[in-house]
């Protein structure tokens, strides 16, 4: 059974990474299958969005598969499928191998209930309108951490190597390696080096989650994961694959416990905790006397499940009840934030924050690297939701990729025709910095790049004389708010690079009733 499970884990992780890499523009407007696929099967995401928004999406139907499998077999998703679980299996392997009999009774066993309280907190918070599940949902967290944190790091390392060999210009070696590099760009590597705000922070948090395996194998899965808690509760009474330990045969070697991925205590006999069991079934493999069997039965084969205390449940519920209103107090709710330029198709702000699960897929897929995680711009409740930073990357006029990958519809599915009608903000010119306005020298890079047919930037023209006494036409740009869609390419390409002379703010965004410039 062990080999089958390992194979399954490796295949699903490979699929996950493959889809992750595929979540990038590959030459066609339609993306095919993005890594969202994994989120589609995630019932925690479905449930929290449902609670927070009272709106179901057809795609949530996929998560029913996971629910059914869990009800019948327990946490097989954790043991066989989850990409974070697999990473934890690998990372926890060293710890697991080094443990001696007795060390399986880990001091962390008391932490097993924590994940249920985390889950409870998230569900109560969602019911009152704060969709926080995405911060700690394993799939969402993994996609975000890889997209924003690790993908840039890996790219940087690999690219630096090849760029070094390219610049070194060695005969034979450099051209050969450069051919390899060219083939990797856009396939294994991102098309361009990704750059994200907070990438170190988000990357390190994930490294911390993986690092917890040094304390106990699969620490995250055992003690913290809210999806694991949900699946454990669903599969608690599962009858199709229960672990059954024959106390008569058991020789108390504790090998089952030492190899147990979930701290589900198959030893001592009768103490198996169904909610904790990750269905790795290592116990049956390692038992030297075949005392452990996995078989369908409705008989209670173990009573090791931890009790959740009313006090802690109450505490986490109350915590959520305090957190939700606390989250909503803040400048971000008082008036629209000019920096908060949301991707085209984003729902109105409140609905958006409630629906977005911060998976970062839109940031991963964004052609120009313009979509970045928020820090304070949307308040703590909207932490790590996407905003467009035109200085880093603009919104490509004929692109709607982010709306294709969004798992929850926080960014609605929009076609290009509709996209062209959506304003995400408005460009305004800073006449004190704009080269023609301030210096009397022509420029108009903004107008050149403005993608709106008919141009949202026109000129005020004036005949001028230059220093040599020749007359020339000075063209000073003016934005037409009716045509400007706020794509930000003008800000991105403006030669005044530090603080561009033309800047987009969120005013005039189609999705808002109040954030409007004129009546």
């Amino acid at each position: 059974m062990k080999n089958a499970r390992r194979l399954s884990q490796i295949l699903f992780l490979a699929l996950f990474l493959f889809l992750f890499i595929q979540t990038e523009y590959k030459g066609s407007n339609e993306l095919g299958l993005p890594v969202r696929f994994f989120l589609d099967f995630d019932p925690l995401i479905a449930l929290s969005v449902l609670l927070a928004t009272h709106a179901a999406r057809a795609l949530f139907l996929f998560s029913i598969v996971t629910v059914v499998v869990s009800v019948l077999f327990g946490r097989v998703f954790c043991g066989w499928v989850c990409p974070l679980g697999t990473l934890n299996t690998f990372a926890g392997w060293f710890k697991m191998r080094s443990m001696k009999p007795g060390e399986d009774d880990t001091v962390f066993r008391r932490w097993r209930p924590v994940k249920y309280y985390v889950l409870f907190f998230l569900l109560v918070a969602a019911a009152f309108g704060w969709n926080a599940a995405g911060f700690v949902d394993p799939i969402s967290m993994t996609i975000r951490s890889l997209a924003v944190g690790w993908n840039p790091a890996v790219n940087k390392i690999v690219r630096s190597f090849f760029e070094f060999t390219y610049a070194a210009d060695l005969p034979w070696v450099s051209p050969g390696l450069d051919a390899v590099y060219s083939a990797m760009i856009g396939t294994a590597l991102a098309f361009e080096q990704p750059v994200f705000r907070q990438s170190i922070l988000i990357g390190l948090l994930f490294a911390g989650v993986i690092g917890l395996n040094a304390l106990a194998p699969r620490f995250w899965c055992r003690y913290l994961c809210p999806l694991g808690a949900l699946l454990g509760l669903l599969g608690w009474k599962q009858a199709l694959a229960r672990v059954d330990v024959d106390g008569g045969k058991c020789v108390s070697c504790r090998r089952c416990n030492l190899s147990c991925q979930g701290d589900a205590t198959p030893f001592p006999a009768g103490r198996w905790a169904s909610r904790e069991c990750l269905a790795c079934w290592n116990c049956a493999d390692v038992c030297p006397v075949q005392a452990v069997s996995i078989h369908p039965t409705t008989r209670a084969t173990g009573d090791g499940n931890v009790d959740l205390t009313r006090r802690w449940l109450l505490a986490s519920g109350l915590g959520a009840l305090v957190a939700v209103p606390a989250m909503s107090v803040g400048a971000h709710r008082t008036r629209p934030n000019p920096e908060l330029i949301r991707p085209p198709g984003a729902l109105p702000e409140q609905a958006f924050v409630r629906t977005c699960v911060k998976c970062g897929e839109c940031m991963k897929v964004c052609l120009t690297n313009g979509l970045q995680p928020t820090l304070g711009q949307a308040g703590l409740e909207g932490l790590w939701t996407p905003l467009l930073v035109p200085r880093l990357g603009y919104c490509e006029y004929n692109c709607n990729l982010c709306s294709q990958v969004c798992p929850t519809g926080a960014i609605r599915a929009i076609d290009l025709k509709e996209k062209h009608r959506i304003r995400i903000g408005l460009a305004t010119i800073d006449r004190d910095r704009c080269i023609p306005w301030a210096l009397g020298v022509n420029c108009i890079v903004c107008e050149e790049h403005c993608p709106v047919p008919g141009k949202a930037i026109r000129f005020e023209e004036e005949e001028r004389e230059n220093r040599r006494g020749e007359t020339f036409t000075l063209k000073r740009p003016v934005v037409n708010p009716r045509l400007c869609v706020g794509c930000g390419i003008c800000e991105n390409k403006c030669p005044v690079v530090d603080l561009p002379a033309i800047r987009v703010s969120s005013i005039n965004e189609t999705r808002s009733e109040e954030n409007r410039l004129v009546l």
Partner: protein
Amino acid sequence: MNRRDFLRTVAGGAAAGAFLPLDGFASPLFPEAAAAPFAVVTGPDPAALVRRAVELVGGMDSFVSSGDVVFVKPNISWDRPPAQGATTNPLVVETVVRLALEAGAKRVVVADNTCNDARRCYAHSGIKEAAEAAGAKTPFMEARKFVKTQIGGKAVREWEVYRDALDADRIINVPVAKHHGLSGVTLSMKNLMGLVGGARNRMHQKLDTSIVDLCAFFRPTLTILDAVRILTAHGPQGGTLKDARTLDTVAACIDPVKIDAWGTTILAEAHDGRAPEEFAFIREAEERGLGTSDFRGGEFHEETLAG
């Protein structure tokens, strides 16, 4: 000495305004260019237009020798379909590639430093597919391949230049005729901005002098102007069919100034019918000896091909 070393060596001299007679590089930068044949061919089949125009100016064999690495520089700047006239017609590019390979080129590279996402521009302009079908390589311009180079111009002294273009034996410039908000028109000289990187947006502040500098530096071996569909307003990227006109024409010459002077005449709509000499970059290019704006002065061919 390959083209790159060559360019590096001459850049210093060019700065002083001294154009040395240099053998072995077909270059329009000499007074003889005034007599260079100029061809304008009209007809329904873009491929035939290119073939005939090149034939009339001497045939590809006179520009490309066997074993040459040829860099073809179309305009792929924008994420627009060919019908909108913002990018060079893919059939034109394809035919130029074929002609170069037929003339014995060892390798043909087609690339541009695009303004929109390069992958989208290459794909949606149709140029990637067409050029590859003809046997060219179409690499995306990657940051590491831009090398600081002495340009030795009046406005552009030193700039990041795409290494493959420096390394090539020949550059064939294949612009499309378009309106431009600042210079009125964008033709062959402005098209060379696609070979440089860095903060090239700053060049707009001295656009006329900058593009003449680039032209003097890159010395395209041959210029083929695509006027199959031209963009007469809201250039250089347009975005609607309304702004594009069908002219079914291709022009070719080794003299970029002739090409651009003629180009202004077909874009009269875009600039209220100014005369070629009224464009500062044409005037300056002429003054600096890059060619002549008198496109009818030398050998002038105008032909219409039947469908």
